[in-house]
């Protein structure tokens, strides 16, 4: 069993994994970070998106051993230590960007990756970037609104569908 270590939300973590163990299962089962959700387990839905060395990755489609030495950020690393939501999370709350909430961790991690590379995305760019994140409740509209708001843009500019 390979021994691995990685920095997760700023904290050094380590463990022993089998070759087949996924990053998602290491985070959830070994580290107890169950905010990362496993929806489809086939890399379609994006509920399991985390940041690996700053890039959005589907953690159900990456081996834990591949993340040895990496810096990981999960949804647990987004809010401030006192629980204050970050800008994106707060915008999701303000604009009702979630209903059941299952997809939300992945949505927030993808939105965060998008805004890092494109701080003022258009509505079309947001929708394109979320191609790999599936939400079965909201119809995406309020998620797009939340990301527009989080990027400091006028939400009213989005036409109702």
């Amino acid at each position, binding site marked *: 069993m390979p021994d691995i270590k990685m920095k997760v939300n700023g904290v050094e973590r380590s463990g022993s994994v089998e*070759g*087949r163990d996924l990053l998602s299962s290491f985070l959830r089962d070994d580290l107890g970070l169950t905010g990362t959700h496993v929806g489809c387990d086939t*890399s*379609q839905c994006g509920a399991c998106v985390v940041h690996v060395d700053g890039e959005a990755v*589907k953690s159900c*489609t*990456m*081996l834990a051993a*591949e993340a040895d030495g990496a810096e990981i950020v999960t949804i647990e690393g987004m809010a401030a230590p006192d629980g204050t939501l970050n800008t994106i999370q707060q915008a999701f709350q303000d604009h009702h960007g979630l209903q059941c909430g299952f997809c939300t961790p992945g949505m927030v991690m993808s939105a965060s990756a*998008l805004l890092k590379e494109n701080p003022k995305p258009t509505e079309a760019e947001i929708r394109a970037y979320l191609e790999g994140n599936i939400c079965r409740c909201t119809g995406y509209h309020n998620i797009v609104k939340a990301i527009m708001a989080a990027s400091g843009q006028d939400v009213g500019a989005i036409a109702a569908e």
Partner: protein
Amino acid sequence: MYNFDFEKPSTVADAVAALGQEDAQALGGGQTLIPTLKQRLASPSKLVSLKGIPEMVGICRGDDGALCIGGATPHVQVAAEAGDYPALAALASHIGDPAVRNRGTIGGSLANNDPAACYPAAALASGATIKTNSREIAADDYFQGMFTTALEEGEIITEVRFPVPEKANYQKFVQPASRFALTGVFVAKYADGVRVAVTGASEEGVFRWTEAEAALSSNFSADAVPSAPSADGMIGDIHGTPEYRAHLIAVLTKRAVAAAA
């Protein structure tokens, strides 16, 4: 998924040595292989990650002007850095979704040769050279049918060399659930002629539409694209009939030529 050993070498030579073990398999970005393993459709004894080999990552221009892309270069990097070949960069920027593009590699895509993948169309239409740890393979010899290539057991794609065309464009008719190409056409115009490669349509995998190549080589305009090829041997599934895919080939070729011209 069945269990396997995991190794992450830092040189091509070490990777080749590690792949010498019986039933060892190379792991690129894993965006196809890991889902395949979950379905127990493969049971390697060992996975050898190619993600830790610096010499296999990056994009440069070769002495002959070709764009050289390391086999382990992820799609996101090709999208950002292959600006010398804009149609190729655009293709890379539309594979899968952003998270998939951050992991998936050009070598992995070409080694897998999914019949609906995008990169095989680019490589075949560009007359690319697939460079491995032991030899160079012309794209025309490399693709040998659905999920089948000229690669030997344990052979690694270290680099792909794309001659840069005068004009090119890739048109992908997206299958929205998988984000693969329902059908895709890559058209590339070189000084010595036009090459047209089609993915997602044929049961034999990516192929060159030679009839369109001949017509476009003498007249590079959308009007010159021949009528749709025969539907014989085209893929038929719940997403589209063979006739539909054959029709798409002609439509997408016209769009690609119009966009490139």
